[in-house]
């Protein structure tokens, strides 16, 4: 019997990890990617990768605490079993990456060095300079190349995924792909298809994402019936530098190594930052969050920077909103050994050496927490059943989703250095699950009748021919994209308001209508980037609508999703008794809000071209939700009230509600 076949869409960390593991399990693997695997967006990840380690363990850390930090950071919106499994496996995954030759920074004694990242109090993050994603990606790319030489893996590295093909039972049995040089459309029969195509930063115009992060593969399977979950949760990273083409990330590791965020206390103080004395600097994160300081989670840091620039009008510059990210007080050799990668980016693009002058930074769209809905199997104790065919499987049988394009690990806000571990974990664990899935099939899906594949190929060919025949008289697709980016960035990022979301939905619909007529200037049948872009543009709208609709319906604040209208009540009285009463009220609102909104948003695409939104309960069986305050100065009264409430409850008999 021939080896089972899997096609993986995307060759970043998740896709490459899955490819090498499936190859080891004797699958024939095809990897489809818009770029050579080595040039995937994972290369842009800078800061590091999280796991409990020998050092933090001795300070009281554990897999459980990594798990707890992750769900607390995500505002409890994740199903907990897969997240727990990720935290449990993380140390072994980093060991594996170490064996694969990743050049992790070392301590003088030769152990892997670790630094602290946002949303935790432990130094849990292993790193390779400030290009950790690149180094991890290269190690996996090398392993995939090794399997390529062994004949187990075939790479299609300039190919656009057009859609999944389903057999008569509805199972995924392959996919249609277009070579973006020859423009030839072909099919790849497979027993399972894995989407590992990353996030959808392109919907926001400029972001920290790479150009291939179009969201098109995800959108295409969404339009074919796969569900999309928690779309409204988009991470805006607090520290990026602006550019005409992209917003470049300055990693959280700058703060992890001791970098401090500040603004001059005097608005737009004209002095050079180095000449402003300590007493006249406002280290606003450290003052407001004494426990976590500059390492509060990203959603909080981003909102604080907005508050400083907008409400307090303390932006460093009058003509451009920005705050200082300062590493000038750190020793030179530390900067060069641990942060050179990001400091070089700042220097190359801004022409200023951040070793001697503080960087000017501002938040930028960064990460897609939502993604394709996928399943998992749990034991009665809430543990993940590793190797279950259900893990990472979408609602389409045999179609899997891993990495940034799944929705499973980060809830309402991702912690820094958790994306790399989630990508590799989901990539590695999907492999035994697929093996179990394929074993359980009576007839191999890839052996579907030839007519199934021929029909799909013909349909995609006709669709492409219609696109190319459209001509150059319609609206300009590049301008439509800019307008979509402007609309999405304005209405659906840091601060969201219902009237604006309603207006944005209308604008998105109008732009979609224009995109359907958008000009295809290039008629060439060879390496036609113009046609490929117009097609990708059209596929941005289903996801854009889902994000805006999801945000519009979710009337609460959770993680990255923030609506001032539904902010938690203030606890601001100076009278202690009244303050305690306010805290009790706060806890009441918190509990009521969780009853209403502690749910995953699950979208399905409907024939009328609109998403239909439903909600699904979240499995919080291992760690009950609690107020997410990160030691905010003055909020200890809430934490006290919450603790009292919990201990009163523990005295009463438990009524267990199955999630």
């Amino acid at each position: 019997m021939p080896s089972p076949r899997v096609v993986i869409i995307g060759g970043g960390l998740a896709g490459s990890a899955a490819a090498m593991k499936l190859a080891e399990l004797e699958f024939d693997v095809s990897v489809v990617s818009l770029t050579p695997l080595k040039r995937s967006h994972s290369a842009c990840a800078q800061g590091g990768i999280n796991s409990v380690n020998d050092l933090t363990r001795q300070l009281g850390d554990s897999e459980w605490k990594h798990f707890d930090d992750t769900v607390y950071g995500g505002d409890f919106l994740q199903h907990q079993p897969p997240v727990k499994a990720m935290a449990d496996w993380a140390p072994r995954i980093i060991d594996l990456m170490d064996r694969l030759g990743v050049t992790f920074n070392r301590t003088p004694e030769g152990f892997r060095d670790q630094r602290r990242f946002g949303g935790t109090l432990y130094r849990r993050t292993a790193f390779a300079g400030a290009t950790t994603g690149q180094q991890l990606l290269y190690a996996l790319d090398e392993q995939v190349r090794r399997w390529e030489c062994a004949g187990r893996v075939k790479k299609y590295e300039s190919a656009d995924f057009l859609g999944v093909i389903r057999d008569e039972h509805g199972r995924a049995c392959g996919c249609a792909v277009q070579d973006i040089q020859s423009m030839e459309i072909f099919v790849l029969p497979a027993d399972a298809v894995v989407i590992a195509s990353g996030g959808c930063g392109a919907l926001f115009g400029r972001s920290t994402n790479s150009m291939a992060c179009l969201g098109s593969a995800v959108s295409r399977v969404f339009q074919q019936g796969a569900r999309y979950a928690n779309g409204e949760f988009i991470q805006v990273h607090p520290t990026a530098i602006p550019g005409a083409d992209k917003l470049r990330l300055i990693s959280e590791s700058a703060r992890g190594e001791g970098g401090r965020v500040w603004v001059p206390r005097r608005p737009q103080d004209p002095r050079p930052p180095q000449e402003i004395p300590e007493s006249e600097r406002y280290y606003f994160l450290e003052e407001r969050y004494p426990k976590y300081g500059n390492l509060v989670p990203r959603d909080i840091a981003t909102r604080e920077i907005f508050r400083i620039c907008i409400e307090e009008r303390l932006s460093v510059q009058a003509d451009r909103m920005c705050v200082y990210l300062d590493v000038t007080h750190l020793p030179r050799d530390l900067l060069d050994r641990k942060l050179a990668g990001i400091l070089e980016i700042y220097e190359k693009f801004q022409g200023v050496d951040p070793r001697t002058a503080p960087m000017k930074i501002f938040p930028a769209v960064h990460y897609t927490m939502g993604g394709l809905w996928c399943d998992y199997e749990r034991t009665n104790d809430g543990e993940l059943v590793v190797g279950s065919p259900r893990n990472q499987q979408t609602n389409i049988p045999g179609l899997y989703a891993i990495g940034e394009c799944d929705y499973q690990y980060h809830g309402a806000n991702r912690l820094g250095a958790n994306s790399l571990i989630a990508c590799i974990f989901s990539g590695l664990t999907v492999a035994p699950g697929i093996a179990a899935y394929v074993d359980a099939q009576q007839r191999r899906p890839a052996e579907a009748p030839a007519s199934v594949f021929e029909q799909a190929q013909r349909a995609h060919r006709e669709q492409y021919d219609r696109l190319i025949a459209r001509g150059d008289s319609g609206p300009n697709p590049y301008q439509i994209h800019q307008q979509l980016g402007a609309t999405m960035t304005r209405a659906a990022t840091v601060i969201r308001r219902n009237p604006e979301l309603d207006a944005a939905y209308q604008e998105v619909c109008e732009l979609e209508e224009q995109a359907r007529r958008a000009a295809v200037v290039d008629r060439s049948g060879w390496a036609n980037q113009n046609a490929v872009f117009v097609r990708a543009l059209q596929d941005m709208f289903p996801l854009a609508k889902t994000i805006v609709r999801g945000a519009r319906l979710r009337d609460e604040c959770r993680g990255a999703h923030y609506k001032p209208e539904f902010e938690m009540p203030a606890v601001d009285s100076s009278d202690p008794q009244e303050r305690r009463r306010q805290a009790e009220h706060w806890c009441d609102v918190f509990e009521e809000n969780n009853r209403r909104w502690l749910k995953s948003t699950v979208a399905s695409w409907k024939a009328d071209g609109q998403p239909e939104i439903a909600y699904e309960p979240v499995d919080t069986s291992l760690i009950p939700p609690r107020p997410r305050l990160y030691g905010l100065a003055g909020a200890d009264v809430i934490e006290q009230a919450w603790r009292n409430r919990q201990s009163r409850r523990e005295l009463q008999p438990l009524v267990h509600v199955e999630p």
Partner: protein
Amino acid sequence: MDRPSDRLETDRVGNASAPRPAGASPQTPAAESFLVRVLRQDGPGLKPYWETHRVERAADMNCISVLQKIAERAETVEGKRVAPVAWECNCLEEVCGACTMLINGRVRQACTALVDQLLADRPGEIELRPMTKFPVIRDLVVDRSRIFAALRKVKAWVPVDSYLDMGSGPRQSQEDQELAYQYSKCMSCGCCLEACPQFLKIELVREKGESETHFRQRLDEANRQAFLGAHAIAQVELFNLNPIGSMTARQRLDVLTGEGGVQICGKAQNCVKVCPKGIPLTTAIARANRAAVRHVVRKWFDL
């Protein structure tokens, strides 16, 4: 108009109605523009031709945003409607290596080629050409698959037994990590190859009636015989330095001392000058040479 202030910076180009943060960055005078000369080619083996585009100058521009503007406008200075210029890019922060091209005659990444600096050095005009050592696919897109073929040839990976849990990798000194990290930053962009006098272009055309497989075989054979280039030699250093990789060092040295190996290097030292990541390529070549000599001598004496 909604509150313009509490938003991420939205699009700064083309959309006058898009809200901006209070007093968005001052634009350079709208009238200021510059010319971009692009060497275009419609497909493999076709005749290249020059085309000139006019681009409005804006703040924070690099050659990527220039090409984005050209795609958006798709019109030459003569007012002729043309297909957008094809080019390759992805990360836009010089870690993926995709957007390598010749900019004002110098091989580099388009993303870190800033317009202000280019125009300061050479006012009024920017020239973009595809790399010359690789076959052109279209316009500025070239076929660099030979770079990855070289990585396959030198077995640029750590040959672990399995992906099962076998504990952590070997301990390593800070010094060794720092050396390895320098080599492991190589993004396979091809700058070192473009600058190398010994690295010559291979451009094969698929003959009439030739099967894809046969053509691939012919290309693989041509690649196998030709010079590996500095990047691959540095990767041999990287994997031979690695404690696990060193166990198969001899296999890599066999490749280095074989056809297309390190002996072809003419020591022009151009590679190290153009490497955007500052990888010590000539050091790697010198060390590889010494290792290769030792390896050959050992083989003579069957040690």
